C-alpha cells in the first residue's frame, strides 16, 4: 500500500508499485494533464512535481512517490489563473498544445527557485522539454512574462494569501506542493 498526496488530496495505491506514476495519474485518477510522449524520459510531456521538483512521470514508478506530494498541471489552479497559466494564455503559446502541460510544470519549478531567470537559465531548465511544434520562443517569452506578473503581484499590498509570503516566486509554486 503506497500513500501519497496528489494535488493536495490524500491517495492510497495498492496496484503494481512498478507502474509508472504517469499511468496512475492519467488512468486511475483521471488527471489527463500530464501526457505520454516517449515513455523514456526524453521529451518532458509527462513532467509533474514531486515534492516541488520536476520528475518525468513516465519513468518514475509509483513506489518512488510514496509519502510524497505530487502536483500536476491540474493542481496549479482551478481556473487557469496561476501566473504561468496566465502568461501562457496572453502569449498564446500553444500550437498543438500537447507538450505544454509539461512545459508549464518545468517553468513553475524554475520560477519557484529562480524568480527572475535569464534566457540562459530558462534554456538550461527547459532543455528537457521538447516541443514538436517548435513553440520554444514563446515558451521562453511566457516564462519571462510569468516572472513579471509574479513580481508585480508580490509588490502589491497583500490582497491574496499567496502574496503574503516573503519568498519571492513562492506563489509560482502550485497550491499543495512542497513537503507536507
Amino acid at each position, binding site marked *: 500500500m503506497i500513500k501519497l498526496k496528489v494535488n493536495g488530496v490524500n491517495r492510497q495505491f495498492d496496484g*503494481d508499485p512498478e*507502474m*509508472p506514476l504517469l*499511468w496512475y495519474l492519467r*488512468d*486511475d485518477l*483521471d*488527471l*489527463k*494533464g*500530464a*501526457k*505520454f*510522449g*516517449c*515513455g*523514456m524520459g*526524453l*521529451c518532458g*510531456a509527462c513532467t509533474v512535481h514531486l515534492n516541488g521538483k520536476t520528475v518525468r512521470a513516465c519513468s518514475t514508478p509509483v513506489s518512488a512517490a510514496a509519502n510524497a506530494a505530487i502536483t*500536476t*498541471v*491540474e493542481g*496549479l*489552479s482551478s*481556473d*487557469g489563473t496561476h501566473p504561468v*497559466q496566465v502568461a*501562457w*494564455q496572453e502569449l*498564446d*503559446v*500553444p*500550437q*498543438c*498544445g*500537447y*507538450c*505544454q*502541460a509539461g512545459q*508549464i510544470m518545468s517553468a513553475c519549478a524554475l520560477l519557484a527557485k529562480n524568480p527572475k531567470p535569464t534566457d540562459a537559465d*530558462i*534554456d*538550461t531548465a*527547459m*532543455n528537457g*522539454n*521538447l*516541443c*514538436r*511544434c*517548435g*513553440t*520554444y*520562443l*514563446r*515558451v*521562453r517569452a511566457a516564462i519571462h512574462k510569468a516572472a513579471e506578473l509574479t513580481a508585480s503581484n508580490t509588490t502589491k499590498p497583500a490582497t491574496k494569501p499567496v502574496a503574503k509570503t516573503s519568498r519571492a516566486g513562492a506563489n509560482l509554486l502550485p497550491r499543495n506542493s512542497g513537503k507536507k
Partner: protein
Amino acid sequence: MTKTNLNRRSFLQVTALAGGGVLFGLYPKAAALAQGARGAQASLQPSSFISIASNGLVTITAKNPETGQHARNMLPMMIAEELDVEWKDIKIVRADLDAKYGSQFSGGSTATPGNWEPMRQIGGAARHMLIAAAAQTWGVAESECSTASGRVIHKASNRSLGYGELASKAATMPVPDLKSLKLKDPKDYKIIGKTTIGAETKDVVMGKPIFGIDVTVPGMLYATFQKCPVYGGKAVSANLDAIKAMKGVKHAFIVEGQPITGNFMTSDPGLEPGVAIVADSWWAAQSAREKLEVKWDEGKWATQNSVDIAKKADEISKQPAARTLRKDGDVEAVYKSGAKVVEGAYIYPFISHAPLEPQNCTAHFQDGKMEIWATSQTPQNGRGMVSRILGIPENNITIHLVRGGGGFGRRLNNDYMCEAAWISKTVGAPVKLLWTREDDMQHDYFRPGGFQYLKGAVDSNGKLVAWQDHFIGYGDGERFTASGNIDGGEFPARFVPNFLMQSSVMPLGLKTGALRAPRSNVYAWVFQSFIDELAHAAGKDPVQFRLDLLSSGTPGGMNAERMIGVVKLVAEKSGWGQRKLPKGTAMGIGFHFSHQGYFAQVAEVTVLANKKIKVNKVWSAGDIGSQIINPGAAENQTQGAVVDGMSELLQEISLKNGRVVQSNYHQHPMLKMSQTPPIEVHFIKSNNSPTGLGEPALPPILPAVCNAIFTATGERIRTLPITKQGFSFA
C-alpha cells in the same frame, strides 16, 4: 426556409430555430443532390453554420480537425468578421465528422484558400438578412441601417436592435443574391488581421482532457497492438495463452489484417496484421506485451537494408535514367561549350513525423454501430476504410474529431483507426488503442528518402545555363511511392534554357506518406543548395544570383515577381551583405514556392570547434496573399516551421534487416530550446487571395542553414542528416 446558390459547390439555407433563433447553414451541393435523389431533402444538414439564439448568443461551428494550426479559430474569424459581431461574444463549437459539414480535412495548407470566400459570404449573408429584418421592423430603408458589435443600428432615429431580437424575423427574410452581396472593405476589418487567442488555449494550459489520448468511455478497455517489425510481415503464432493469463489481460489475439497487398504506392494500406492485447489498463496491456513472443512470417522485405539501397542508387546513377520528365534545350551541348560545370550528388534519408502524441484511437462497437474518437486529419477517409474493412455501412459509423497532439501529415492516414475499430468489434467493448512511441516511429508513413544527381553549368557571364537532375527514388515502373514523386516542373524549370529532369525508381518495402510540405521539405534543400553551388561557381553573390535567375523565367507556374519580392525583403531585413561578420560566421539563403506560398529565409550561422553549429538568427519573409488572418498564430506557425525544418537536418530513419533502426527521440532528435535562434517573421501583403501557412514556411530553412555552413567553412553539405558530415547543433 429560404435558400440560395452560393457557388458551384454549395448553397446557403436559412432556417428558423425553436425559441426564436435562426440558423444560417452552408450546404454542400453534392450532398444535396445525393439526398435529393433519395428523396430525403428535409434531413439535409449544413456544412458549417452560424446560429443566433434569441438571447443573442452567436455560435459558430468550426468544422475542420485541429492539430495545432489554429484552424478552429481561423474559419470562425472569417465568419464573425462579416457577420459583424465581437470576437469575444461568439462561441465556437467543435464539429463531429458528419456529411453535413462537407469536406472536413486538415492538410495541404488548404483551410485558408478553400474557405476564404464561402466563410465570409455566409457571414455577410447573415448580416444582410438581420439588417433586412430590422429595416422591416422599423419601416425604414435597409440602406439607412448599419451594424456594429452584434446589433443593427438606425442612426437617423437613434434606434438599435440586437441580433438575438432580430433572429426569428431574419429567418423569414429572402436570402440575398450572394454574387451581388457586398462584403466588407478590408480596411474596415476588426477581426481578420488581428490576433485572436486559440479557442482551446485555456483548456490546454489547464490540462483539460481534450486530446485523443485523453478520451474515456464508460467500460472502456485498453489495447496495444504489436505489428511485424518488417513491412508486410504477418503473425503466424504467439504465446497467447501465457499472455491471457497475465494480470489485467482480458483478450489477446492475432489479427490477420486486410492489407491492400502489394501496393505500397497507396499510403493507407488498410488493416495491417499483428497481435492485439486488450487489458483493463494500458499499463497491464503494455506489460503483457513485453512478454509477448510472436512467430512472424516476415515476408519478402526481411533483407532490406539502407546500405544496400544506397549502393543500388549509386549503380543506377551510372546508368541512363529510366524516364525523362522534362527536356528543354540541350544540356550536353552546354557542357561541351566550355561553360563551368558543377556536379553534386544529394542524398537524404527517410524521416518520421513523430508528432508528440503517439497514434491512438478509441472505438466502441455496439449493436452494429461504430462510434470512434480520433485525431485524424482525414476522418472521411478513415470512415471509408473502417466501413470497407469491417463491413459496417458508413452511416452506422460516427466519428468524433478530437484534438491531435501534432499532425504534420501523420494523421492523414488512418491505420490506427482501423486497428481500434477492429479490436473493439472483436472484443465487443469500447477500447482505447494507444501506440508506444516506438510503434509510432517504426510504423510511420515515412517521408521518403532519395538520391538526386545534379549537374549544372554557368556561362562566362555567370548566368545559369544548364540544369540536370537524375532523381532516384522509390516506386514501380512509372509510379512513385506515396509523396516520393517528382515532376518536370520543379524549379528551376522554365528559368534555365537547358533543363533535363529524369527519374529512376527502386522497389521499396516501407510505407511512405506526406510530411509537412511533402516533397518540398527536402527538394528545396536539394535545389537551393545546388543553386548555391552554382552561384559560388559563377563568382556571384548568392542573393543576386537568385534574383538574376528569377528574372529569367518563362510564364507558367510560380509567380517569379512574388518570389523576387520575398527574396529582396529577407535580404533587406537580414542586412544581407551589409554587415561584417566575424570569421566562422556566415549567412545563407534559401527560397521555395509550395502550397501557393512564397517564402525566403536567411540564416546566420557560426561554426564552432568540432563542427558544432550555432544558428544565431533566422529571418523569414513570406507572401501568402492580401491578409494575414491571425497574425499571432501566423508568427507562431512560421517560427515552428523553422524549428521543424532545422530538426529535419538532424533526423534519419534507416533500415536494417527490414527493420526500422530508430525507435525513440534519442535516435530521431528534434531541436531543443537552447538551439532555437531568434526568428524574425515578415510578410508581404500582396494583392492576391489569402493562402495557407501550415507548410510553405518550412522548406527554405534547410538550405538556408546549409548554405551558411558552406560560406562559413567551405564544406558543402550534400548528405542529410548533417551528422553524416560530422556537423551538429551546439
